[in-house]
């Protein structure tokens, strides 16, 4: 454990000394990963707080797609150790996952919303909101 952490530290120092080439790529990757986490936080808060199925679908669909794409893109940049053929292949694989998620997540949310609408799940109107507010006041 101790030896391992020491070698990791030495490797970090060596890469920092050799520097330049791929350190900016790592910084961009870390920043885009943290941005993805922020979008996922928004999606999670929306899924808990929103009152209706369709609004929850709105929060989940958009935030989920964008945050997944940003996080995978960030990890593809961070794991780019050197510019050998293997690491390029890895980046292309991660880009394939991103392309797949870009195509399928909006499709699946569209199918779910269509199924909900044909199942007579009506969206919330303004009157429903007033009713729920009155109920809340009566309860309190």
């Amino acid at each position, binding site marked *: 454990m101790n030896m391992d952490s020491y070698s*990791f530290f030495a490797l*970090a120092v060596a890469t920092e000394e050799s520097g330049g080439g791929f350190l900016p790529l*790592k910084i961009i990757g*870390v920043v885009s*990963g943290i941005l993805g*986490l922020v979008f*996922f*936080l928004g*999606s*999670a*808060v929306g*899924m*808990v707080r929103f009152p209706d*199925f369709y609004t*929850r*679908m709105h929060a*989940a669909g958009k935030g*989920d797609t964008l945050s*997944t794409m940003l*996080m*995978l893109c960030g*990890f593809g940049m*961070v*794991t780019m150790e050197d510019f050998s053929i*293997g690491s390029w*292949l*890895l980046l292309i*694989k*991660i880009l*394939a*996952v991103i392309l*797949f*998620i870009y195509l*399928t*997540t909006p*499709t*699946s*949310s569209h*199918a*779910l919303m*269509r*199924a*909900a609408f*044909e*199942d*007579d*799940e009506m969206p919330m109107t303004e009157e429903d909101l007033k009713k729920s507010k009155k109920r809340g006041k009566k309860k309190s």
Partner: protein
Amino acid sequence: MTEWFATIMGASLFVLMIPIIYRICVGPTGFDRILGVNVIGTKTAVLLVIIGTLYGRVEMFVDFALTYALLNFVAAIIVSRYLNRTISLKEMEAREKAKEEGKV
């Protein structure tokens, strides 16, 4: 630096999944539940890439992530087709009759 970043990302992703698990448990309709399952499945593909970064075998775990995303998509489509209530012909005619009577 890469290992620390992967650990912190994985832990915070896991913490942020808790509200969605709450929505799966108490969701009023079945569609809420399957929506939460879909979101968690998409995030699991990211978690697999993070685990691969921690073990140093990303080229193997990326294939798992791709397969998991594919299965998640297929599951969402199948469930939406299953929950989609198709109306029989008799019921449709009865609804049209009711509409016409209501108009007249």
